[in-house]
């Protein structure tokens, strides 16, 4: 009796699964779907179209050197075409959240992703501390802007890429390779110097 009570539902389940599998296999394919039928186009026209399309894609790629930043692995590459000219270990955004206890403001410290370009090159950069830097340290936000200026924390050079984000040096070299920043890209001194020499205003930056 017990055997039947187990056997019947089990056989039923197996038959149901078999039915599902058979029906699904009739409705599916893992092959290529044929492209919709097109009017016959001569071979040379297809080849020319292929060449034009390839050129159009190539034309979208940056000319000269460009910077690629892998925020997951914390690596920066300076490339020209498919050639890597420089590889550097970096620190990028921590992804942390900071809330202003006295106001409704909130900051998320992510490194922005997408396509950017070098907008400014600065030698001996000074850090103009934003509001979040004071809130994070539990200090009062100063009224005098001079109290916001901090020297020597951004290294010898900085490359600005918009919205207050920079590729700059760091005092925390031990943290290179980690996601610890407020969104900027920290680079070691030697690599930063090379990067600063080669990159120009307008050099494309790809962050992912």
């Amino acid at each position, binding site marked *: 009796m017990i055997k039947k009570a187990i056997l019947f539902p089990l056989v039923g389940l197996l038959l149901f699964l078999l039915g599902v599998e058979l029906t699904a296999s009739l409705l*599916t394919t*893992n092959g290529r779907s044929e492209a919709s039928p097109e009017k016959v*186009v001569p071979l040379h026209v*297809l080849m020319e*179209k292929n060449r034009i399309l390839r050129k159009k894609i190539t034309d*979208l790629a940056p000319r000269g050197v460009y910077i690629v930043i892998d925020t997951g692995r914390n690596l920066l590459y300076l490339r020209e075409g498919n050639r890597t000219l420089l590889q550097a270990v970096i620190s990028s955004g921590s992804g942390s959240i900071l809330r202003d206890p006295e106001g409704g403001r909130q900051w998320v410290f992510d490194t922005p992703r*997408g396509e950017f370009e070098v907008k400014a090159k600065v030698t001996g950069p000074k850090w103009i501390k934003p509001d979040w830097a004071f809130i994070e340290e539990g200090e009062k936000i100063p009224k005098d802007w001079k109290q916001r200026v901090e020297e020597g924390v951004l290294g010898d050079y900085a490359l600005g890429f918009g919205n207050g984000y920079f590729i700059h040096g760091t005092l925390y070299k031990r943290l290179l390779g*980690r996601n610890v920043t407020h969104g900027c890209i920290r680079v070691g001194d030697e690599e930063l110097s090379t990067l600063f020499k080669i990159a120009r205003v307008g050099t494309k930056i790809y962050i992912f």
Partner: protein
Amino acid sequence: MKKIARLFKLLLLLGLIFPSLGTDPKISAEEDLRQRMKALREGNLLLEAERRLASKKGSYLVLDLRRNSGEGSAKLAIKNRGIVLRELSLLRYSLRKSKGFVFEPMALAQKGTFFPPKRKEIKPGKTDGAEESSGELDFLELKDMPTSYKLVFSETLFVSVGAAPQDLPSKVFHTVRSVVRHIFHSLVLIWSHIKGKEVAFIEITLAKEDAQALYWSSEIGMNILVIQ
């Protein structure tokens, strides 16, 4: 007579080994041309799709499922403006799709995982330096990303991503999950067919760090182009 029979046998054998010798070279050339034109037509459609993606701002994914096509195993590339930012090798993949489903660029609508990574909230008054000295660094990093998750593109393409299992228990878990997922996909395929909707399921296995990197890099709205 024996010689003729032997010659006939030899010709028959050659015909079996080299069947094309028996076919009309004109027909063979026509077939080659047709195949070449078909490949070019399909290639142009893909190039046109990629050109559209590359001309937009933002990174996109190209999942190339062609095997032994001269470029080695199947690959997943993170691209921007036509340049490869990073390429991930697929250890394994499987594809099931409704008949007639055509791969077109699709936008990422959802990232699904049981344990999504959580952002850390900074407590004011506790700075970088202090955390560094006390060894309490706890930021969101690649290692915190899940190794098993689902990416849903345009509500029609479901990409299940998993890391290659390392030990026996995880291998067993991986197999059981694949079977359950297969049955579930079958049910969804039948249900979608009833509703007149076409869907596709791709299951990919990557190295652990690559699976985490894909979760890290994929953003809602990001497009994918699948090449089969």
